[in-house]
């Protein structure tokens, strides 16, 4: 395995729409999400609770219960092959074999009545046809790989005998058992305390360097993003509002929502100028999403056009898109802190028509 980052697109999701039929009506949880990730790369999907980040990944994995859930439109491709709604491609299982997944709360994400080792071994038995003892021996090796001391003894223990951080390590061991090409980490550190968070993130990075797997990291923590990601997609109300490389996202933020998130992020300095600023208001009701920009109601710079028309993704740089009318070439207003394409570049760079393009 090499740590080389190839430029081949490994996993790509295109124009994904997911909705849920409830008693109150249809919730449009994901409204046209597109992204892609390459081998060895980490993509972070950021957004507040309920913005659809987990739902879109679970939909891709086929984990949302249907009904009430429904994938209305879209595709998800692994090495160019659409696998949405399938369990296998080329004889390999998607879940557990090609794509591993870890979850937010390790305490409840493991079966309480099954030994840790057996839970890890199960994946190998199912996908690799290992015998029970073979799989268990490999499970012990995997526990060693994720740096669990006394792995042999630990493998015979039950989840309630593990601490939260150890459980998340065990989850990681389980997810990488079959050497998946993509690991989806759904808020892997949210339930853990800060020192353990750092350890888990370092572990993920280390494994990524060894195996070259791609990581899709779902989080609402920008500090985690800065530490881990190669590129970032910011989600709001079921759409990706800005996507960019991690540097561009932090230093050339092109969407007011990204700016808002940054201002709400704690910093080391504690003077008045660096006070945390919450984003006022709350996300729109996804039973009837607004016709225009979903962020319009909370945006301090909202314009007339924002209410009626949803902005397309405007190109603001190399692989850098933002769904905001402020990025329209004809907009002459500059906002403090918001990145704009320098005027001389606007003339030759195409924009506005980039609807539906992938990250």
């Amino acid at each position, binding site marked *: 395995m090499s740590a080389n980052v190839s430029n081949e697109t490994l996993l790509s999701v295109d124009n994904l729409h997911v909705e849920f039929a409830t008693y109150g009506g249809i919730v449009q949880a994901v409204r046209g999400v597109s992204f892609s990730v390459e081998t060895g790369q980490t993509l972070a999907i950021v957004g507040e609770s309920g913005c659809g980040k987990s739902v879109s990944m679970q939909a891709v*994995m*086929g*984990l949302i219960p249907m009904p009430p859930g429904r994938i209305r439109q879209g595709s998800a491709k692994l090495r160019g092959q659409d696998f949405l709604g399938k*369990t296998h491609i080329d004889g390999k*299982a*998607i*879940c*557990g*074999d090609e794509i*591993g*997944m870890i*979850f937010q*709360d390790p305490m*409840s*994400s*493991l*079966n*309480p*009545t*099954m030994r840790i080792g057996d839970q890890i071994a*199960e*994946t190998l038995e*199912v*996908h690799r046809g290992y015998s029970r003892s073979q799989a268990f021996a490999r499970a012990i090796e995997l526990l060693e790989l994720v740096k669990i001391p006394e792995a042999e003894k630990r493998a015979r223990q*039950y989840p*309630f005998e593990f601490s939260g951080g150890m459980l998340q390590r065990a*989850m990681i061991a*389980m*997810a990488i058992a079959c050497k998946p090409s993509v690991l989806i980490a759904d808020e892997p550190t949210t339930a853990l305390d800060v020192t353990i968070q750092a350890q888990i993130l370092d572990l993920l990075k280390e494994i990524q360097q060894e195996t070259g797997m791609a990581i899709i990291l779902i989080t609402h923590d920008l500090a985690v993003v800065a530490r881990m990601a190669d590129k970032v997609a910011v989600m709001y109300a079921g759409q990706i509002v800005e996507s960019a490389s991690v540097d561009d996202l932090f230093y050339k933020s092109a969407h007011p929502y990204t700016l808002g998130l940054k201002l709400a992020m704690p910093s080391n300095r504690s003077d008045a100028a660096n006070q945390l600023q919450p984003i006022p208001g709350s996300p729109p009701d996804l039973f009837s999403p607004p016709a225009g920009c979903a962020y319009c109601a909370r945006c301090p710079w909202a314009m007339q056009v924002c209410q009626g028309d949803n902005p397309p993704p405007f190109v603001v740089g190399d692989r850098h898109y933002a769904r905001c009318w402020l990025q329209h070439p004809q907009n002459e207003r500059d906002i403090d802190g918001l990145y704009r394409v320098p005027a001389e570049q606007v003339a030759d760079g195409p924009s506005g028509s980039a609807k539906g393009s992938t990250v």
Partner: protein
Amino acid sequence: MLWYTLKRLLQGVITVWFIATATFIGMHNVPGDPLSGERATNAAIRANLEARYGLDRPVTEQYFIYMRNMLRGDFGISYTQQNREVNDIIREHFPVSATLGVLAVLFAALGGILFGALTALFRNRLPDYIIMFLVILGISVPSFVFAALGQLSLVNINSVLGFSVLPVAGWGSVSHMLLPALVLGLGTMAYMTRLMRSSMLEVMSSDYIRTAKAKGLSPTRIFSRHQLRNAALPVITVLGPAIAAITTGGFVVELVFAIPGLGRYFVQAVQQLDYTVIMGTTVFYGAFLVFMVILVDLVYGWIDPRVRLQ
């Protein structure tokens, strides 16, 4: 684990002692006594009999004598039956009740777990509606109605076919046991179905089932390895009391099917104020119940490792 078992057994002994004492006090406070029957006895005979059975002594003294005998495993002799020791009554008739009860519980548990899991898997679809309707029926209709209906349909089936598929009543072979056991277990089965359904639904929406799906396990494997065991835990909890309740509560069914079980003696003894038989059967059933609960707790610890160390 050993310490835990010993602790539970000690608790059980105390519970049984408490049951015995409470029954003793209650029994002696009921108006009348075993000697005040329909046949009037004159005062002299009565005094003789009281002296013979120790009924003339203070109640506290009687209590201590009784407890001492009980510790030796001697429940005394029956007041109303000729030359019958309570121990003999229990020894002869309890195995019958127990066999019937265990079979009924087996029906109830297997049926409850199976149907409960089915209703959860087919939640809000036709199989769920049908089974849940039958469950309501099973809980609300008393067992003697099912017993009578069962016998009636068995008679009809036997006469239509021209030979006996299953005997309608009596005791002796396995074929005698099937229908009464089914009838006896029906109410508990219905109750367990409901219990299993709700716990199965809870398990199905839990995070670790999502994990199991993300691991790419097949639905059958998820069902057998992850859902069934965890969902069956609450059902196993009620199994202990259910065994005791079914074994002791089989009186009506025993009567309808003419089965020589202990339940009949239990009820008769209370009606006739047969002190020794009341005490014997109550203490025996009490001990049986306590033992079953302990046994289930131990089994529970085996299935759910979290219980073991706490």
